[in-house]
């Protein structure tokens, strides 16, 4: 990771009150990729509930991810917000807004969002993570990287990168 900080003076917003979602989805699991109990029963779709997941629940999962460069969460920096989450039939699309158009941390932020959601959501959800249109100078290149399944899989086999992602997820930035 280069020593250059892309946005030395981000605008920090106050976090809103925790959403009132009654259902809690599990967060940081130990296993990086495989959700052990689900793995041993690949054909079983035994999510306890088949209720619809809403924007607030997804937002609750990603709001506390830390920005890689600052001791602030993605919510505080207005990088993610509930209205920027689109949910459809077995699919979730998260749009996030980098703090500056030349943000080189965008792929790392996008990857952190993906890892958090993969670990927390039922496997039936297809995830699309994109930057807010117009918010980044290399929008298409960033989006392509973030949604290339093979690149993501290879990235998550890179121990240094995985550690950086974990730091964003746990706040040890």
């Amino acid at each position: 990771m280069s020593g250059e900080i892309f946005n030395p003076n981000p605008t920090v917003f106050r976090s809103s009150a925790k959403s009132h979602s009654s259902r809690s989805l599990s967060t940081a699991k130990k296993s990086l990729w495989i959700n052990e109990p689900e793995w041993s029963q690949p054909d079983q779709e035994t999510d306890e509930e088949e209720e619809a997941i809403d924007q607030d629940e997804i937002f609750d999962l990603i709001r506390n991810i830390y920005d890689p460069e600052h001791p602030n969460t993605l919510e505080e920096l207005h990088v993610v917000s509930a209205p920027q989450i689109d949910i459809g039939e077995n699919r979730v699309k998260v749009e996030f807004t980098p703090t500056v158009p030349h943000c080189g941390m965008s792929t790392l932020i996008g990857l952190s969002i993906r890892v958090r959601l993969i670990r927390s959501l039922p496997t039936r959800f297809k995830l699309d993570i994109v930057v807010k249109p117009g918010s980044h100078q290399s929008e298409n290149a960033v989006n392509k990287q973030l949604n290339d399944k093979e690149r993501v899989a290879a990235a998550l086999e890179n121990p240094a990168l995985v550690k950086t992602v974990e730091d964003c997820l746990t706040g040890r930035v």
Partner: protein
Amino acid sequence: MDEDLPYTLSNVAQLGGHEDRAWHIAWNPAKSLLASCSADKSVKLFTYSHDGEGTLNFALAASIPTGHLKTVRSVAWSPSGRTLATASFDSNIGIWEQELDDDGNPGEWECASLLEGHETECKSVAYSSTGTLLASCSRDKTVWIWEVQPDSDFECMGVLMEHTQDVKCVAWHPTEEILASGSYDDTIKLYVDDPQDDWFCCATLTGHQSTVWSLSWSPNGKYLASASDDKTVRVWRRNGEYEFKCVLVLEGQERSVYSVSWGVGKSSQENDSSLGCIASAGGDGVVRVWDLSENSSSTADVPLVRLIARLPAAHGVFDINSVVWCPRKGYEDLLATSGDDGMVKVWRIQRT
């Protein structure tokens, strides 16, 4: 909707065992073996045979731990069926042969050679039709061509740096020494050997709007099918020596198409204009099969195509990473798929 289609895909086998997503599968062209590889870093070999009552049974024959340090992304058999190549995210290619034990019976699969050179993850590996050449490609944007020599020696014949981004797949022409590669740069490139000089890129096919994930030549070698992140399968017709034109765009897939395979189809009917069947699969979890034939009536060079089978949720909610027709005589109606659920499944196409 599916009831309208003339063929169905019925399940023949569900093969578990991989502990992580199953990326790729390859049918041995000479023996009754199906190989699969996985993010769990292993290769599994399944045998198949008919029992007394005409049912085809599949069973695990061997699990090769490989020793690759990361995901095994792709496997390929040599035309003789005696050698297996593995491509790994650890950037290396493994060459595997089955040792004979003291009684001359086939024993363990051993690593006969390790091909190093790629700088980043290796994505695909393929043997040419004669088995004398091996091609590999990587996120390092290169395609390597290796000459297969006796004693599992491999000599690098060329490093082709024509793509501007990761190279996702390589596929050899069924009869000629022409190599095709598909890339994250949205293009397909074709390469041939200049006897006086080196391997070079003789054509670049543009048209896809996103990454090209998979390539498959038609059995007669006149067409090339490509599967892309843009949710389409394109069919390219060879019009000149190295001149290709896109003649069909197959739509309907709802997410990235990760794999395409062109089989001979139900060519037991002696139909000269039949081009075979294209099977596709990807992120929407659906296997689709199209039947193609030459269009003799029209002046246009566009083949006739119709969707003949559709199998939703072949691996449940999971992505399908690979779909491959069996190349062996007598088994042309078999189709294998591998998915993010770690499963390898075998299907038979039959009349509804």
